[in-house]
C-alpha cells in the first residue's frame, strides 16, 4: 500500500511518544501526525465500539495470569489495547460483565476487538512516524 505523495511526512522526532499517545487515546497518534481524517475516524469508531461492548454488558477482564484460565489473561491484554478508556471504564465501575446477560459474549467480542484494532492503529501510527507511509 502506498500513500499519496502529498501525505508523505518526514520521520517524526519521537516515535515512541507518538506510539504511546496512539495507544492511550485511539486516533491521537494520527492526529499528532496531521492525519486528521484518519485520527478522527479511529477516535470515534474505536471509542464507540468499546462503549458498545460495555453497553452490551461485556466484561473488562482483569490483568494477571491464572494458570487455570489462561484465556482470561489474553483477553485482558486485548482489552488493555484500547488504552485510557480501559482505565476510565474501570474507574467508573463499568465492565463488570453480567455473565447471565444474553449479550455478554457479544459485549466481550466488541471490547476485545476494539482493543486489538487499536493496537493495529498504533502500528500504523508508528509506520507513519517513521516516514514509511
Amino acid at each position: 500500500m502506498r500513500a499519496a505523495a502529498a501525505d508523505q511526512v518526514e520521520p517524526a522526532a519521537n516515535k515512541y511518544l507518538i506510539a504511546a499517545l496512539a495507544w492511550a487515546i485511539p486516533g491521537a497518534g494520527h492526529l499528532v501526525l496531521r492525519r486528521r481524517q484518519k485520527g478522527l475516524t479511529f477516535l470515534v469508531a474505536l471509542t464507540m465500539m468499546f462503549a458498545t461492548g460495555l453497553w452490551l454488558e461485556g466484561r473488562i477482564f482483569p490483568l494477571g495470569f491464572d494458570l487455570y484460565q489462561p484465556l482470561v489473561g489474553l483477553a485482558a491484554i486485548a482489552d488493555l489495547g484500547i488504552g485510557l478508556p480501559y482505565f476510565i471504564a474501570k474507574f467508573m465501575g463499568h465492565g463488570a460483565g453480567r455473565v447471565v446477560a444474553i449479550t455478554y459474549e457479544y459485549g466481550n467480542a466488541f471490547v476485545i476487538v476494539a482493543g486489538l484494532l487499536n493496537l493495529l492503529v498504533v502500528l500504523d501510527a508508528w509506520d507513519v512516524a517513521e516516514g514509511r507511509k
Partner: protein
Amino acid sequence: MTTHVGLMALFSIFVSVVFATLMRDEPRDQLWFGVRLFAGFIGAGIGIGWLLYPLPL
C-alpha cells in the same frame, strides 16, 4: 438491535470502518473498500449460518 444479526451488522460496521481507514488513504477508496468489506462480512455470516443450519446441535 440486540439480535444476533443486528449485532453482527454493528460489529461489521465498526471493523469495516477501521480497516478501510487503515488500509486506504483516499476517502473515496476508503468508502468503496469499507462497503466491500462490510458486504463480505454480512455475506459470509449469512452464508456460513446457512451451511451450519442442517447440522444437529
